[in-house]
């Protein structure tokens, strides 16, 4: 029992250990349980009739031919949902969205009717047999055109509504104008500034494209009046609340289960019409109904990300000290405002746009606009528009550096919030918890030998025969994650806390149930490690369960890097409640005062006496058969954690590219990513998350784009066209870290999985622009495909 301390610690596999994943055994043997694997007796299949047009009035829908097909059980349209008041649904952003198109369609691939059939083949045949007659209406796909006085009216249902969920509406296609910071002080900074720069940039519409598409299996039991739904959701508890509100079924009779999720990346936060339709169909037919979208439906209709037209300005002194920031954004939200943001923040956390820099005066304004495109606006592997914000500020700092002829590393160091300034309140009101940017930057510059890289670049530029242009990208970003303090952040009125329930069993093993849901992050592995360290129970005997609203405590789910910052804290604090009770039991068993005990890895021992101790295993048993008088039996705790603040992870990323002068092809020679996520719980999983986030960032920067023609036809909505990199294109990543714990988080952890996506995207653009900067280029919009880069080279006279 008295094994050396180190051995006992290692036996726990707690915080800091690269513990192999507990999830893997089922996934590597084909025993995962994803939504499409769910099969129920009597289950029917749903498919969706979608609009081929982006804007049209529905003249007539003829279901007859479809209904006549053997194996077809129902064809439902908006008119069928009307009596149930389910033809429209509220969105997370305070707007409403048509569940099935009500009198007109407003984007291509919009849901028009549903077909329920015996199997997916018959359902697909029946979709073809539903006849819909349309009258075409003028289409507007550009948000600037949408704001013209004579622009087509996209949302007739909002006629005369001059007040939206986020203030006044000034035009029939205007959703909101949201501002942060102080305009007058920002304007004053610009009025007196010796140096100013301005840059327009477009962050194109992209899609998270997880490998598993969205879907659900809805099963309404008409006898019990209970609804069970398996669903691809990153926030099952919120879905339960929404479903109860929409259907009128008491929340206690709604059970939402997020089983294994095949990647989310923001795509699976929203509530989509397909889910609602499957649930309605199950209620109407009294049988389980499965709906799983295909890839084209996924890319076309269930959410999108970004689509921000941004304009940034910096004011500065001649030596590069930034004195003011102004940002204006026109945000294309598509035909319904279904952005997934905390309710009070229609542009999410975009006001983190002052970045890692000490900027005394700043203002931003975001104008949301309707167009004839799919709704969505999800946080694609980021915390609510942080990606857009980081992109803008990092590009602007580069632009300023270029104008002043100051090196881009040097200008950053001059403007960083210094270590001694934390906690630091930004001009936008965020209170940054901790950071040490200078140390991290220097570590990266040393690791890559930045000076040598610049010398090599100068030599290449001087050599007219060099076949390539060399570019060095540098980004020094700060994220705001872990939403969030419920006084600021809520979803549909529910505060964004998160929760954990831990039960320690008599024989010393434990189960933890959480309000979050893993989609590949490895919660079952890492959450157990936190409990192992807190309670001295080996992580191997700690089960972690999430995703079933009937067993797990209410939580807001997993997105915005909130699992570790919020749920991770809930785990630690639930464990500490158990720890406190265990101490009482140990004192009772050892017949000493609580104050005479000290905690050591997995046991309480009498201070100064190694021979008198009770292990957590001993205490667990005692909790169920001989608790001290006055103490209730059992050993469990629940904790709902409402964070006092966000967390602010940061990183320093450097990328070296070589662009072929003749073809525009870009080779990522090197990518060095240093992340600081505070306390590191499982380094192996952190590295894996960073590799994945960097690869998604690479995809966005170098190729992803959902584009539309003038008629609103979506282009590139299959994997034939939409860029998902293979192992061949994907660069090799070098990772590094520093550790600056969060002072307000019980474990000091900050969250990590989104940083690499947020931080890498502007790094690639920074590198591409850097390669062209000696030719006077200050910015190039994404995606940096070979064709687009070649066009730029041709414009510059570099390529033929």
């Amino acid at each position, binding site marked *: 029992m008295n094994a050396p301390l180190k051995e006992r610690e290692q036996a726990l596999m707690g915080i800091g250990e690269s513990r*192999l*994943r507990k*999830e*893997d*055994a*089922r*996934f*590597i*043997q*084909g*025993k*995962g349980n*994803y939504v*499409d*694997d769910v*099969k129920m007796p009597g289950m029917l299949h749903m498919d969706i009739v979608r609009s081929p047009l982006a804007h049209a009035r529905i003249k007539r829908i003829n279901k007859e031919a479809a209904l006549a097909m053997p194996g077809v059980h129902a064809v439902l349209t908006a008119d069928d949902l009307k009596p149930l008041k389910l033809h429209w649904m509220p969105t997370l952003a305070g707007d409403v969205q048509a569940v099935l198109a009500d009198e007109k369609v407003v984007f291509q691939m919009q849901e028009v009717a549903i077909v329920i059939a015996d*199997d*997916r*083949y018959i359902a697909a045949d029946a979709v073809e047999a539903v006849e819909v007659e349309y009258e075409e209406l003028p289409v507007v796909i550009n948000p600037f055109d949408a704001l013209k006085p004579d622009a087509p009216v996209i949302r007739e249902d909002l006629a005369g509504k001059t007040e939206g969920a986020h203030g006044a509406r000034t035009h029939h296609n205007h959703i909101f104008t949201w501002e942060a910071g102080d305009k007058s002080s920002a304007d004053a900074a610009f009025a007196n500034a010796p140096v100013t720069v301005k840059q327009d940039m477009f962050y194109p519409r992209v899609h998270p*494209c*997880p*490998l*598993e*598409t969205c879907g659900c299996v809805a099963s309404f039991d008409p006898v019990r009046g209970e609804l069970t739904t398996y669903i691809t959701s990153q926030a099952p508890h919120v879905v339960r609340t929404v479903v109860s509100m929409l259907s009128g079924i008491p929340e206690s009779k709604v059970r939402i289960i997020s089983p*294994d*999720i*095949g*990647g989310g*990346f923001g795509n699976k936060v929203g509530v989509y019409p397909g889910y609602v339709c499957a649930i309605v169909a199950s209620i109407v037919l009294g049988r389980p109904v499965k709906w*799983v979208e*295909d*890839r084209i439906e996924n890319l076309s209709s269930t959410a999108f990300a970004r689509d921000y037209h941004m304009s940034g300005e910096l004011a500065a002194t001649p030596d590069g000290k930034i004195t003011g920031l102004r940002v204006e954004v026109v945000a294309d939200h598509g035909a319904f405002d279904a952005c997934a943001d905390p309710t009070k923040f229609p542009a999410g956390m975009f006001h983190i746009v002052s970045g890692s820099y000490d900027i005394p005066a700043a203002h931003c304004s975001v104008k949301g606009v309707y167009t004839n495109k799919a709704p969505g606006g999800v946080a694609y592997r980021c915390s609510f528009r942080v990606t857009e914000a980081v992109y803008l500020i990092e590009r602007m700092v580069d632009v300023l550096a270029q104008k002043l002829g100051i090196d881009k590393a040097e200008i950053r160091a001059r403007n960083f919030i210094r270590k001694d300034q934390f906690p630091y309140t930004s001009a936008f009101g965020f209170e940054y918890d901790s950071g040490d940017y200078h140390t991290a930057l220097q570590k990266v510059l040393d690791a890559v030998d930045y000076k040598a890289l610049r010398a090599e670049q100068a030599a290449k530029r001087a050599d007219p025969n060099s076949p390539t242009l060399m570019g060095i990208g540098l980004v020094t970003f700060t994220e705001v994650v872990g939403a969030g303090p419920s006084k600021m952040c809520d979803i549909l009125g529910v505060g964004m806390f998160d929760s954990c329930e831990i039960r320690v069993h008599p024989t010393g093993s434990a189960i933890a149930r959480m309000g979050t849901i893993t*989609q*590949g*992050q*490895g919660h079952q592995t890492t959450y157990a490690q936190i409990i192992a360290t807190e309670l001295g129970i080996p992580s191997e005997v700690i089960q972690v369960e999430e995703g079933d609203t009937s067993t797990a405590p209410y939580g807001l789910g997993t997105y915005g890097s909130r699992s570790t910052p919020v749920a991770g804290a809930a785990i630690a604090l639930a464990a500490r409640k158990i720890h406190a009770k265990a101490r009482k039991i140990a004192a009772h068993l050892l017949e000493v005062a609580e104050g005479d005990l000290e905690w050591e890895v997995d046991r309480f021992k009498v201070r100064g006496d190694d021979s008198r101790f009770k292990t957590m295993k001993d205490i667990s048993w005692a909790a169920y058969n001989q608790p001290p008088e006055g103490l209730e039996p059992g050993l469990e705790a629940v904790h709902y954690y409402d964070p006092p603040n966000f967390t602010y992870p940061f990183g320093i990323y450097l990328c070296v590219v070589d662009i072929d002068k003749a073809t525009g092809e870009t080779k990522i020679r090197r990518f060095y990513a240093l992340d600081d996520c505070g306390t590191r719980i499982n380094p*192996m*999983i952190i*590295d*894996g*998350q960073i*590799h*994945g*986030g*960097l*690869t*998604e960032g690479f995809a966005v920067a170098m190729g992803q784009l959902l584009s539309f023609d003038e008629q609103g036809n979506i282009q590139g909505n*299959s*994997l*034939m066209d939409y860029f*998902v990199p*293979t*192992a*061949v294109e*994907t660069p*090799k*990543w070098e990772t590094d870290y520093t550790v600056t714990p969060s002072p307000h988080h019980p474990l000091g952890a900050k969250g990590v999985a989104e940083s690499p996506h947020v931080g890498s995207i502007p790094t690639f653009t920074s590198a591409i622009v850097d390669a062209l900067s000696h030719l006077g280029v200050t910015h190039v919009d994404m995606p940096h495909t070979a064709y687009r880069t070649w066009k730029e080279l041709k414009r510059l006279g570099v390529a033929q």
Partner: protein
Amino acid sequence: MSKKLVSMTINGNKVEEAVEPRTLLIHFLREKLNLTGAHIGCETSHCGACTVDIDGESVKSCTCLAVQCEGADIKTVEGLASGGVLHAVQEGFYKEHGLQCGFCTPGMLMRAYRLLQENPDPTEEEIRVGMSGNLCRCTGYQNIVKAVQYASRKLREPATDTVAA
């Protein structure tokens, strides 16, 4: 729709079923035989989540009809482990953290299984090219490459230690 009788060997078991001629192999495996390891990610042969091994070749089962597999010898992820022991590629993905959400994993494993028979000692570049028919959104492939290298080493120099299934 009239059905056609097909027979094939799947993971060593003889299977005989009546299927509609239009039934895709992936639906036959997943819905008829409850072999849900192989997944559907795109239905256009791009993502490789549905990859299975048919007569010694990696095949994307979303673009292959069940009736085309008459008489075929098929292996799916469910048949990889044997005798209660994980196959080296499974062990490699586990040990090298070659998976996250797990959705692409069965396809990746089946491709790696075949790749290492086509080329038992591939270079990193050969692994990247050899696995390029399979998409992963989570890992960035770096640890998948390591996992295949691990399996390659293990298959060439079988160690005594194994990981139980």
